[in-house]
């Protein structure tokens, strides 16, 4: 046997040795692999007295972890939603501000908010009694006169209008009722003071157009006076009784 080995030693890479080497490597690999894979199992079974308890705890832990995962998923989803909202918001911020301004404007027009600012005050007064005229309608202020003024003011961009302190709404009605006019069910006698909040110059120039409202009113013997007012305050319609 000894002799046999010595004769083979000079050439260790013969076919036989390669085969043995291969087999040995494979065997070693299998052994090492199984050792490795059974290692965690051994550590698990080493605590066998507490195995049941451990198992129970582990199951509880798994349940908790699943719950955690669920909640985390939910959280992630909600955060995603929030991020979406934020993105939307940031992209719409300019538009948002514009919307707010518009809403303010609309509120002012509707009379929901109280108006305050520079404006003009137009007073319409019946003309003095004229003995030459037999018809009193010729020299008293009619609702149509007021309508003209109101429409002109609105067209010129008045933000809020009030008659004798009564704020006009979008759906206010004005009717002529003999010597008085009725605004939203409240009667007002002459003189009628129309207050408008807005840009004074524009409003006045709109009223003073040649052949415009003032001229027409003057033609119909209505006494019109106007003044610029630095601060006109109007209560909102909600504050009125």
């Amino acid at each position: 046997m000894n002799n046999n080995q010595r004769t083979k030693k000079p050439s260790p890479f013969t076919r036989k040795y390669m085969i043995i080497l291969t087999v040995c490597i494979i065997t070693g690999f299998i052994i090492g692999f199984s050792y490795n894979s059974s290692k965690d199992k051994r550590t698990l079974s080493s605590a066998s007295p507490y195995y049941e308890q451990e198992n129970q705890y582990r199951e509880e832990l798994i349940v908790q972890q699943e719950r955690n995962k669920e909640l985390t998923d939910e959280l992630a989803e909600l955060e995603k939603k929030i991020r979406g909202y934020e993105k939307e918001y940031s992209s719409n911020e300019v538009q948002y501000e514009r919307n707010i301004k518009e809403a303010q404007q609309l509120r002012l027009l509707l009379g929901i908010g109280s108006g305050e600012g520079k404006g003009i005050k137009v007073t319409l007064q019946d003309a003095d009694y004229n003995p030459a005229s037999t018809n009193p309608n010729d020299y008293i202020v009619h609702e149509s006169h007021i309508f003209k003024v109101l429409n002109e003011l609105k067209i010129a961009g008045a933000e809020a209008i009030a008659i004798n302190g009564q704020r006009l709404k979008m759906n206010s009605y004005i009717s002529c009722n003999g010597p008085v006019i009725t605004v939203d069910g409240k009667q007002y006698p002459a003189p009628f003071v129309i207050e408008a909040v807005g840009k004074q110059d524009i409003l006045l120039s709109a009223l003073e157009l040649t052949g415009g409202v003032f001229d027409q009113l003057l033609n119909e013997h209505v006494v019109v006076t106007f003044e610029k007012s630095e601060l006109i305050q109007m209560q909102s319609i909600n504050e009125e009784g």
Partner: protein
Amino acid sequence: MWLPLLGLIFGVMLGVLTDIQIPSVYENYLSIAVLAALDTMFGGIRAQLQQVYDDKVFISGFFFNILLAAGLAFLGVHIGVDLYLAAIFAFGVRLFQNIAVIRRILLTKLDNRRLKKSENS
């Protein structure tokens, strides 16, 4: 004779270092594969010592034993009978036999050497 030993150590290192997790279902196969491999290895050593070693027998025995054992275990798992026990039994018995033969041969060799030494001196 050192080359196979180095190969064995190399293989063990490789197996320990690889970080593959196999499902617990296949652990039966692994144990049988270990047994078959060990059996074939000791069989090879015995054959070498008895000077009846043959390459073809050795290599074919190695792979065929492993495959047979795995196939038996597979069959056993699928028909619900622990057939792998048969493989374990067979391989175990053969393993012990082989080791016993190797031990005897080595002992006789040792005795012969001692006799030679005493004759020389």
